[in-house]
């Protein structure tokens, strides 16, 4: 199967108090299209930085990131924004819905940016899938945490992304809500055939993916393939 994400010799160094601080050292891995993977590691291990680089949110200090055969290193910030809009979906730990937009409008934004037609119906359909069609005109502040994350799922899938990045998607939810959101995430993912990359320190969640990349001190310490994941 073709790789959707190719990471080669990836390093990231920040300036901290005038001193260089390397948070990622020579990372190499590839993700096959349509597969699911989890990046796990303790706090401060560099996993969120790695996610930001893979999704084109930041520029690497050295090495390459190739997403859907597009080398992100050579792109300007605006071009990377276009890549994100065309190929990438995001789910964040703190939901990151736009507070001034209704649930429906939040879902519509990625499609509007692409200039697509008939977006309202498609967005409503997605909200229906996540069980929130009746709350489509509510603002994020009027929704519970779980509901906000479900809107966030609908938004992430709205532009039919090739790859979905989820940063601690259940980090801010209780166990019961987490379970529902995870099920929804994997169901939608399967249905859409999207590649899913999860960043988490919740091993139970990580085991639901096909592959676990363990990272510690900015380096990959293990890369396990688990076969077909089991989703309850």
């Amino acid at each position, binding site marked *: 199967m073709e790789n959707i994400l190719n990471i080669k010799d990836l390093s990231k160094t920040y300036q901290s108090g005038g001193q260089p601080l390397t948070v990622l050292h020579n990372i190499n891995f590839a993700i096959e299209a349509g597969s699911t993977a989890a990046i796990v590691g303790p706090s401060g291990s560099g996993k969120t930085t790695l996610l930001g680089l893979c999704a084109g949110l930041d520029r690497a200090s050295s090495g390459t990131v190739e997403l859907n055969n597009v080398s992100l290193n050579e792109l300007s910030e605006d071009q990377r924004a276009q*890549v994100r809009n065309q190929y990438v979906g995001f789910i964040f730990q703190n939901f990151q819905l736009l507070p001034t937009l209704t649930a429906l409008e939040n879902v519509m*934004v990625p499609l509007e940016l692409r200039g697509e037609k008939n977006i309202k119906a498609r967005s409503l359909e997605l909200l229906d899938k996540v069980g929130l069609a009746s709350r489509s005109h509510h603002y*994020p502040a009027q929704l519970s945490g779980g509901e906000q994350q479900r809107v966030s799922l609908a938004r992430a899938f709205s532009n039919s992304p090739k790859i979905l990045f989820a940063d601690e998607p259940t980090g801010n939810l209780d166990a019961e809500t987490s379970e529902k959101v995870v099920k929804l995430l994997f169901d939608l993912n399967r249905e859409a055939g999207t590649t899913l990359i999860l960043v988490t320190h919740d091993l139970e969640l990580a085991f639901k993916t096909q592959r676990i990349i363990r990272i510690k001190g900015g380096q990959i310490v293990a890369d396990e393939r688990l076969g077909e994941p089991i989703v309850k």
Partner: protein
Amino acid sequence: MNQLSKQPINFRWLFTMAWRDSRRNRSRLFLFVSSIILGIAALVAIYSFGDNLRQNIDDQAATLIGADLVLSSNKPVTPIIQKLIDSLGDEKSEERSFVSMVLFTKNQGTRLVQVKALHGGFPYYGELETTPAAAGKSFRNAREALVDKTLLLQFNTNVGDSIKVGEVTFKIAGVLNKAPGQTGVSSSVAPIVYIPLKYIAQTGLMQKGSRINYSYYFKYNNPVDMVKLTKNIETRLEKEGVNHETIESQKEQTGKSFADLTRFLALVGFIALLLGCIGVASAIHIYVREKINTIAVLRCLGVKASEAFLIYLIQIVGVGFIGSIAGSLLGTFIQQLLPVVLKDFLPFEIAVTVSWVAIGQGIVLGVIISILFALLPLVSVRNISPLNTLRLSFEETSLIRDPLKWLVYVLIYLFITGFTYLQLKSWPQTIVFTACLSVAFLILAGTAHLLMWLVRRFFPFSLSYLWRQGFSNLYRPNNQSVILIISIGLGTALICILFFIQGILLQRVSLSSSGNQPNLILFDIQGSQKDKVASLTKNQGLPVISQVPIVTMKLDEVNGKTALQLKKEDNKNAPPHHVLTREYRVTYRDSLTNTEKISEGEWIGKASAGNIIPISVEEGFAHHNRLKLGDHLLFNVQGVPMLTVIKSLRNVNYNRVQTNFLVVFPAGVLEQAPQFYVLITRVPNSKASANFQQKVVRSFPNVSVIDLALILTVVDELLNKIGFVIRFMAGFSIITGLIVLIASVRISKYQRIQESVLLRTLGASRKQILAITALEYFFLGALAASTGILISLAASWALAKYKFDTTFTPQILPVLAIISFISLLTVLIGLLNSRGVLNKSPLEVLRRDV
């Protein structure tokens, strides 16, 4: 990369997003824009008023001048001019005006007034507005006078009582409410008394040396080409020293002076607008900080940096536009008040109409200025990284790294300079204004930064928690120190400068009357009265401090050149021709007085007739008129030519009541020339002054008296009138400052909610949180007011030293009162606005998505 097609900017979507994004922040956005509403309102009101003035001047110029043509001269007209006068106009009137003492017979009060002796039907346009109305016409045919209403009030005199002018007693026929071209200010400086011209000889006031202005008013029954007419007679008039005015020239002159007035007022309004703009910039800065997360999410979803920037720019333009419309509407309302505020300066009643041009200017200006000032914080939007969705780290892009910010600063500076130039029409003045404004801004901003640095550097750790928290609020993230100190400080500085200048001017006049300084001047004393006036003074127990002879003369040639030759040459290095068209009042003596010092050349106190006479000229007059040592001046002393040479330049201290002269002759040459005298004395109190003045006016009706107490009253009245207008305009700045203050406090409320709630959750009482807030705003208010006052003290000191040539000693009590008032006001506004936070339960706020 060929998989990424170039996507054009979708403006429709940007507008939709701008609208959606503003949805839950509109009240806050309007709060930002409220800062500029008053500034726009002030400018629209002034521009509209200026438009109305132009319109009214065009419509009413004829009533300002009262005739089609006016000829005037400060000496009796020659036969040539008399012949010309006889040939002009279908109707004509003659007037002689001069200053003289009048005596109110009812209560023996005396006052220096402007007497106008009139013959003929003047004014031909408009009228002498009197009570009763018929008196304006009827007084000309009887021994009656019209007396300015302020005089009648002052001396508690009524129509039917009488007034003595010179040797003649006139019945008061009516109250003079308004004469052509007269304003409230001019009537308080020189109140007018009209008498019929036929009694002028009997008054005995037309003596040699008296300063009389001769005016002739003409009316044409059929339209006449005035430009052509005046062109034909111009040379003759100029040669004989006669001025001429027409309705057109009056229109131009009045228009010009009122254009200056409206420009000055517009500049004061502009300061209010600038203050508001700082408010906008600061508010948008906080707004952008609050929007970082939204912008980062949008960037994650694929919005380009320029698109994110445009979304917020559209919001600013929209809100700026609405704010400008609101400002223009308010300005149109305030415009109705301006004729009332300025009534003492206007020679006619203003008909107020809506000026669409002014409203248009206000809206365009409001939008431009809100964009310019919002751009400063808004350019940072381009640099907000999508990474902020994962971890929030908003670092201000440094100026060096973002050239666009420099460009915005340059644009703002260019805009301010350009706008100021449009008001002042003079580059030196524009540069001085913008430089002063920049210095004031820099000092205030510098003070704010210094305060933050000092508090951080020398943090008072030993103080109690409340004080520490209050102090630390001054420099922590989202502090308002800079904006509040600039806006409150600038407003305070403006008001205080006005207050101090008024004080300086009054102090300057009153200083001259302190101690044993002279305070009463008697002038127009004829040669024959010299000794009698002196003995009357001594008999009253008053000192004759000095009695100075004055000889009036004209200057015919400077270095062999006549006025016409100088005018023709128009040489920038030669004296201007008007040096030769004025009358000179000269004295002669053998020594300098104690108010004079020789600054150049050598003082020569004695000379004899027949030789070139060495004279001394006042240095300021010499410099202004490009006269220098060694220049030869040919004076005409009432028909006798006298060739003189400038041998010395004198520095004269004008701060004392003293007869000061531009030109001083040596003793030995003018003793035989026709002359009159000035006597200077000192009266101990107002009662003695009134008593002495009555005796002088009764015995010597032609002698005029200037009482320093009168000057003080006039100056005070004048300054109050000017001060009222300036205070009205400065009020816009002050209220804008308050709005900026309220807006800043309200905006920061959103920042403070979390903190206050956390404090309350941790057990802080309402009282403690109120105390922290009060302390913070007290520091800010007190520091801003103190800095503003320091700026105003420095500016007033500089004005006193370099402009008014006097010392400046500020009054401490008003200064302390201002500081206390502004500090308390700041605390009050701070507390009132923070009240909302305290009234909510911590849980309610913690649950709410702010």
